[in-house]
Structures are given as C-alpha cells and as structure tokens.
C-alpha cells in the first residue's frame, strides 16, 4: 500500500530525512520508534504534504506517486495524519469542521454529502469509540482541549474519515494511563484488513496496547533497524544507543526495507 523509497527532506541546509525506505502493506500496523530529533515527525508531516520541506525520493501510495500532491488531495486518496500537536482553531466548531472534512472527502469520491442530522448520528456513534462527550462537538476545534482530549479528537477524526493509511504521530505523548487505554482502544477498533497504520512513538508502552506487525528504529534521519514486535522490547531494555553503529555498518539505503 505504502512504499517509501530513499526519502530525503531538508529545511534550508538542514537535512532531516536522509534516505528513508519503508514498505507497509494493507492490514499491517508498523511502529516507528526512535529518539527525539530522529526525524519521525518530519516523516509523518512529509507524508501528509506539509509545506516547507525540500523533498527528494519517492513515495508510492496504492501505486500512485504521493509527493507533489496537495495535502487535501492526499487526504482524499486516503491518507490521514494524527498530529502530535493538534492545531487549535478558534471560532470553527468541531462538528462543522468534521462535517466539512467528511463531505469534502465524499464529494471527491463521488458520494452524496451527509446532511447535518445524518452526520450527527455518525459522529455520535464514533464518539463512543473514544469516550467523548457530545459537548466536544460544539466547542471550537481543539481550543482549550486538554492534551488527552486533543488526542482523542484526532482518533475521532480518524474514525469518521476512515482513511486507508493512518499515520499516528506520538499519539501517546502526554496521555495518562487511562487516556492511553481509551486512545489505543479506539485505534485497535479501527484496525482492518483494508487499512494500514504507521504508529510513531518514543515509548514501548503504547505498543503494549497497539501491537505492531513490524517495528522500525529511526535514528538521525534513517531507519537503522527493522524487526518484529520483539524489537520494541529490546529497545526498551537497551535504548537507542549503539544502533547508530549498526546503521553505519550496514548502510542506510538497504536497512529497513521490508522484503
């Protein structure tokens, strides 16, 4: 479904992604772990189409090139990014925002738009998934939300927009254990054979709740190791130190490509 080949990204003279290669199949959940500054969030933002990066390499999504397309076009194709720091948008009600988003996607796909009542029914059903109160729907997007509420709102959006590729950028950061369980529960409910997920995290703890098929370790703009779910436990025990040596020895271009 997603094939990333030798992806580079720079801001000015600073190279942040230095040749990332990664393949994710439908139905799979991949975890990308790594220390602060490794480029994990940049990878997520570049995939979603954020401005400001000089990008080189290739990203295929269902066989089509993703790079160079607008963020809205990528979203219409089925890409979704759960933001690490969801943006607050004063004056735009959450309900209105979500209905506009869903109807934009539906229009793009040649489907009928949902009216306010139909949408509300859908939203209320999906809100149960992340245990959100309906009062959230009438508040401005993310404005004054706690950290946990913002993350739940991201998962709610994923549940409503039903992407085929979901990239979760540090969805666990700032969550207490109860909120983590709710968020992870929402994510797990959305796992499906048609949907791929890339879960970016610092901590192995999230992966106790969202069990990945593959784990990749990103250091210094490259994926330096890939393995099964047991790799996460190994990282938790030994840390990221020492992995750089592995990457240097093996070379970046080949490491991390799923066969």
């Amino acid at each position, binding site marked *: 479904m997603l094939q990333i080949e030798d992806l580079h990204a720079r801001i000015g003279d600073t190279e942040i992604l230095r040749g990332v290669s990664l393949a994710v199949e439908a139905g799979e959940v991949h975890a990308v772990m790594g220390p602060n500054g490794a480029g994990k969030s940049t990878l997520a933002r570049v995939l979603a189409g954020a401005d400001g990066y000089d990008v080189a390499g290739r990203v295929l999504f269902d066989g089509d090139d993703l790079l160079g397309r607008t963020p*809205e076009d990528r*979203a219409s194709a089925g890409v979704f990014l759960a933001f690490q720091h969801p943006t607050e*948008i004063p004056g*735009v009600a959450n309900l209105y925002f979500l209905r506009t988003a869903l109807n934009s996607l539906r229009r793009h796909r040649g489907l009928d738009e949902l009216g306010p009542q139909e949408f509300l029914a859908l939203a209320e059903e999906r809100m149960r998934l992340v245990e959100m109160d309906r009062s959230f729907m009438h508040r401005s997007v993310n404005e004054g939300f706690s950290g946990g509420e913002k993350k739940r709102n991201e998962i709610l959006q994923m549940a409503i927009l039903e992407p085929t590729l979901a990239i979760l950028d540090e969805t666990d950061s700032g969550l207490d254990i109860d909120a983590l369980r709710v968020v992870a529960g929402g994510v797990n409910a959305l796992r499906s054979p048609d949907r791929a997920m890339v879960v970016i995290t610092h901590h192995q703890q999230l992966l106790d709740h969202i069990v990945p098929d593959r784990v990749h370790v990103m250091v210094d703009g490259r994926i330096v190791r890939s393995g099964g779910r047991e790799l996460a436990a190994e990282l938790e025990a030994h840390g990221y130190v020492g992995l750089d040596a592995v990457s240097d020895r093996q070379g970046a271009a080949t490491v991390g490509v799923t066969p």
Partner: protein
Amino acid sequence: MSTAVSSVRSLAHLEPPSDGPHPDWLAPVRREALEWVAQHGFPAAKDEDWRYTPLRVLLEAPLEAARPDTSGGSVLAPLARVADLGGAQLVFVNGFYAPFLSRPGRRSEGIAVTNMAAALAAGDGRLRAALERPLPAYRHAFHALNTALATDGAFIHLAPGAVLDEPVHLVFISESGDAPVLVSPRSIVIGEAGSQVTVVETYLGTPGSTGCTNARTDVELQVGARVEHYKVQDEPVSVTHLASLGVRQGADSSFRSHSVTLGAGLARDEVSVRLEAERAQVDLGGLYLPGDGQCHDNPVLIEHVAPGGTSRQLFKGVVDGDGHGIFNGHIIVGSGAFRTDASQTNRNLLLSDRAEVDTRPRLEIFADDVQCAHGATVGQLDEDALFYLRSRGIPRPVARALLIEAFAGEIVSRIVPAQLAALVQRLVADRLCAGVPERSRERTP
C-alpha cells in the same frame, strides 16, 4: 483643523436648505454650523484623527447637496437586499424619507418612531437640544456640515420606561444621477429613563452612485436606558461614506453598538461616547473588510467622565487586495472617573501582501484606581491551521474561507436580531469567500 476653506473648492459653497420645514430656532443653528466650517476648515493629514484618511479626492469633488428625489425605481434593487427585521422600517433615499418604501411600526404608548422632517414640521421641540447644542462641540467640519445641511433622517424617542421589542430599521440608500451629491441624513435617538430600544442602520446605494454620504447619528441615554445599535454599510465603492455616531450616556445606562463595514471607497465610521454619569456601560464592536481600492477608517473615542463606567471595544479587520484598514482607538479617563474599567482590542488579518493596516491605541488617564487594557494585532492566516484543515481533505480555498469566517464570526456572533445576523453572515461570506463554490460553503448552524 487647518485646510483653508478657500482650497476646498466645492463643499464650502454649500448653502443651508431654504425649503422644507423650518422652525425659527433652526435657521441660526444651521448658519452657525456653516460658520464653524468656515472658521475651522476641513480636516487635514496633520490632524491626528484624520492622519491616514485620504480625503483629498472628496474635498475636490464637485458635490452638490442632495435634493429629494422622485425618480424612484432604481432603489428597489438595493432595498430588496435588506433584512426584514419585523418592526418599523424607515427608508431614506439620498437622506430624504421615502414614505412609500417605508413601514411604520406598531404604535405604542410613549414611543415615537418617525422622520426628522415630519417631527420638525410638527414642531416637536425634543429635536432641538440634539441639533442645537453639540456636546462638547462639533467634532469636525463634517459633523458641523451635517447640522448645516440635514433636513431629514430618523427621530426615535422613548418616554421613561418605554420598551420597544422589535428593532427599528433605518435604511439609507444613496442614488445619484448625473452629478455626485452630498447626502446628509441626521438621526436622533433619545431614550429616557429606563427605556429600551434596538436601532439598526443599513446603508446601501444603487450601483455606480457617486458622491458622499455624510451621516450623523446622535444617541442620548438617560438614567438606566438600554440602547442596542447596529450598523451595516455596503455602499458602492464609488461612494465616500463618512459617518459619526455620537453617544451620551446617563447613570446606569447601557449602550451596545456593532458595525459591519463592507462598502464605499473610503468609509469612515466614527464613534464617540461620553459616559457622563456613574456606572454607565458601553460595548462596541466592529468588523471592517476593505478590499481593492477601499479604505475603512474606524476612529473611536470613549470619554469616561463619571466614576464606575465600563467600556469594551473589539474591532476586527480583514484586509484584502490593496485595501487599507485603520483603527484609531482613543480612551480618555477624566480626573473624576475613578473605578473606570476600560478595555480595547483591535485584531487584523491581512490576506494579501499589498494590504495595509494602521492601528493606534491612545489612552489618556487622569484618574486613579482605573483598569485600562488594550491590545492590537496584525497577522496573516495561520498556516498551521490551514495545513491541519487541508490534511483532513478540506480544499485550500474552503479552508481559507473557514478560517476567515471564524475570525469575522467573533463579531457576527454578537449580532442579536437573527435576521440581521443571517444577512451579515451572508454578506461577509460573499465578500470573503469569493471563488469558493457555493456548495462547499455550508453555513454554521
């Protein structure tokens, strides 16, 4: 105030009207007002309050005082655009009352809603004070010129305790034929003790109208009166719109006013409020949306004269193309106005790199124990928010429109009459979201 009158080729030659209803006391008032103009001249760039206001073109235009117009017909199109607010609707064409286009409200005890010419003809002495004694003085030549030339406008009077539930809607339509005209409507609202009223002013014009609207509205609130006021200005860009709203507030009175400025090439909406007795409250809001070739100037003066007054100001500008937005907010807290609580906020959104904003707070505080807060911002659309919306599949133009409407919505949402709020929301959306397909523009419920 120093532009020599001789350099003003046209406005200074204007004569007070000789026809129309004419009580004895009015002729000297008009003559003195015109003399005031001759003495003080028109504002110039070195006057602080007019520093950024491009008046030159207006002052050189060959304006003639408007006459009652009977051509009719062409005003029907703009009239069809106004909101029906359910109550009295007084229509003025070039400043003159048009009875056949108007709808008087229900008659009720202690409430007069009429036009100034009719009130003058009936010998209504209650107009006299408002026209005769500008307090503290004429603000500038355009204020005096309005007094000298105005023969019509609205007159609204509420006796003590009178409450008018339905808004009074004043619709001013400018319509010029071959020659540009100076339109001088004068409206007077007097709320006696404990009375309540909502007044809406809408200014429109027929396409291609030229000339200048020089409108003056005086509002007097006596003890405990509550007046809610709205103004929507959407005149053609070929028109200059100069307006001043002068408010005097008695003890425990409450005045609330919101303006939405869309039209005219140059629009200057002056609001000056004197809190003359204890615990008066004023809440002002404004939204101005200058685009290509437009300048929207918003001078505000709040004078806290008495103790315990509260004033709030929130003015927001969305400036597109080579538009120019101005906010000039002046608060004076006099030596007797202790325990004053004043705040002023001005926020501006620039949609183009040619757009210009001048924002200037002026606070003069002569009393102790006063709270005074002010803040001003000028910024662009939040790129992070745009990316966030687009990453959810919302196309860029729709995402922009959402953010701009949200910015403007803070003012629009303060408009209480539902029909007016809906009209303003539509006008603002039409202006700000040009290029967004209609079907993408769902309305916030």
